[in-house]
C-alpha cells in the first residue's frame, strides 16, 4: 500500500490535542529509572500486613505457594528447578510497583492506594532478601535497588538465517 507521495499531507488534522490533565490520568507507567513513581513511600513491615490481607490467598503465606504462584524465592528440594519469582527472575524493582498498581489484586485491580503499593513493593523486596527490614522504598530509592536477576537478562540478538539459537 503506497500513497503517492505528492498527495500525503504533513498532517491529516484528525484527532485533537491531549491536555496534560488527561495524559496525567492515564500516564501510570513506571520506568526502571524511576520516572513515573509517585510521591509517598513504603516499608516491609506495613506491606506484610497488607499482603496477608489482600494477596496471600492467591500467592501463599509469605508469598510462597498459593494457587497463583510464588512471588518469593525459596529452595524447594522436591522441585527440579526453583520457581521463577521476583527474587530470582525479575530484573528491575520498579516493575513490581508498576505491575501491582495496574493489575493487582487480580480480583480488584486498581483498588490499591499508592502508599499500599509502596508498602507491598517494600515487603516483596524484603521477603526476597533484596532489601533489609528497615529499608524505605520511595521514588528515590526504588530505582537504585539492584535485582539479582538483572545481570542474567540479555536482548534477543538473532537475525534470522539458518542459526538455531
Amino acid at each position, binding site marked *: 500500500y503506497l500513497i503517492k507521495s505528492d498527495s500525503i499531507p504533513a*498532517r491529516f488534522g484528525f484527532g485533537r490535542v491531549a491536555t496534560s490533565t488527561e495524559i496525567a490520568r492515564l500516564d501510570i507507567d513506571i520506568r526502571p529509572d524511576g520516572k513515573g513513581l509517585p510521591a509517598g513511600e513504603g516499608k516491609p513491615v506495613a506491606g506484610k500486613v497488607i499482603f496477608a490481607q489482600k494477596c496471600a490467598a492467591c500467592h501463599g503465606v509469605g508469598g510462597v505457594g498459593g494457587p497463583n504462584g510464588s512471588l518469593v524465592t525459596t529452595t524447594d528440594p522436591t522441585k527440579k528447578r526453583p520457581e521463577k519469582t521476583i527474587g530470582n527472575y525479575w530484573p528491575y524493582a520498579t*516493575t513490581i510497583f508498576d*505491575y501491582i498498581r495496574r*493489575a493487582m489484586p487480580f480480583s480488584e485491580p486498581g483498588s490499591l492506594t499508592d502508599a499500599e503499593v509502596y508498602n507491598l513493593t517494600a515487603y516483596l523486596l524484603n521477603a526476597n532478601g533484596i532489601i533489609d527490614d528497615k529499608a524505605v522504598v520511595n521514588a528515590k530509592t526504588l530505582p537504585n535497588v539492584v535485582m539479582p536477576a538483572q545481570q542474567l537478562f540479555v536482548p534477543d540478538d538473532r537475525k534470522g538465517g539458518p542459526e538455531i*539459537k
Partner: protein
Amino acid sequence: AMAIAQTAHGKAVQEGLSFTELIPDDPTKQVGTLAGEVGTRSGFEKVIKKPSDISSRSPLQDFYGIITPSDLHFERHHAGIPVIDPNKHELVIHGLVDKPMVFTVADLKRFPSVSRIAFLECSGNFRTGKEAMSPQDICGLTSQSEWTGVKLSTLFREVGVKPNASWFLAEGGDAAIMTRSIPVKKGWDDAIIAYGQNGEALRPEQGYPVRLFLPGWEGNTSIKWLRRLELGDAPWQTREETSKYSEGIKGGKIRQFSFDIDARSIITFPAFPAQVEKGWIEIRGLAWSGRGKVVKVEVSTDAGKSWHIAELQEPVLDKAHVRFRYLWHWNGAETEIMSRVTDETGYIQPTFKQLIEARGADSGYHFNPITAWQLKADGRVLNKPENVR
C-alpha cells in the same frame, strides 16, 4: 449482532427444540428457512476452541485454507475480555512527540487505511507430553485474520514522533492494563492500529474496538483494547517483558525482547484425533514465519529419513499462515510423518532436540519444534511426545 436468530439452528436454540428434531426427512420436499439478517453455523458442526481461564486454543485440525473464522480465533488475555464502548474509547499518544494527541475510534477510521492477511501467535504456543494431543492442543494459540487499520507510521507523523524516541509503550484498556515496550522502528516499519478483522470490526476477544497489530511478532506485543502509546527513549521493562515472555537460554541467561515468531509448521491432517485408511492421503498443514515469507515446506513420511517438497497454496503472503499439501500413498505400515518449514531468511524449523541443545533445558517461549505424528497400522494418528522419542 443482536438480531433475532433466523435459521433452523437459531430457532431451535430460541424455542428449546433439539437441533435434530428440525432435520427434515427430505429437504427437497419442504421449503427451507428464509433469508436472514445474520447467517448461522450448521448445527452439525461442533468446531470449538479449547478454553482455560486465560486462553483458548484454535482447532487447527478442523480448519480449511488460511483464514481463521473470527469466533474461532485463539484467545490469550491476562484479565479477561473487557466490554468497551467504542463511542467512548480513545487512543492517547504522548511522550516524545511534538504534539500529544487523542484519537477517537472514529478519528482513527478517517486516516488512510491498510489491510493485510497475517497470523498472530502467542510465543508460549507449545505443549507436548501426551500421545493423545491434537494440533489444537500442541499449538492452537495461533490464528490468522485479515486485519485492517491505520498504519502506526501515519499516526507517528500526525503527532510528530521525535528523533530521539527509540521505544514506545503500548497500553491496553483491559483489567490487566496490559503493557509492552516496542522499538519505535517496528512502528515505522509495519505496525497497524487495527480496528477491522476479517471484514468486520475486531471481535471483543481480539481487542475491540482497537488494537495494536505487529505483523510477525509474538502475540502479546500486539496490545489489545489499546488506549495509550507513550514514546520514550528506553524500554519500560514491564512485567510482560521480564517475568513473562522471556526465555532461558544457554549459560543461565534469560533472553528478552525476542519479538519475532520463529518459522514453524505443523501437519494438521492426518493428525490426532483423525483416523485414516491406507491408500492416497493428502497430508495437509499450516506453515508460517514471523520473519517473512515461507519459501519451502518439506514433509517426511518415513520418520525424518527423507523429505519431500510440499505444495504451497497461493497466495503465499508475508508473515502469514500458508496452507501446504503433500499427496502421499500410504501402504498401511506404521510410520511417522512430520513437516518442516524454511523461511525467506534461510531459517529451517528445528527439531525439539536442536532447540534444547541450543537453548538448554530451562527454556520456554518461542518453542517451535518439528511435530511428528505416529501413524499406527490401524490408522490412528498420535502425537509423538519427546519422552516417547
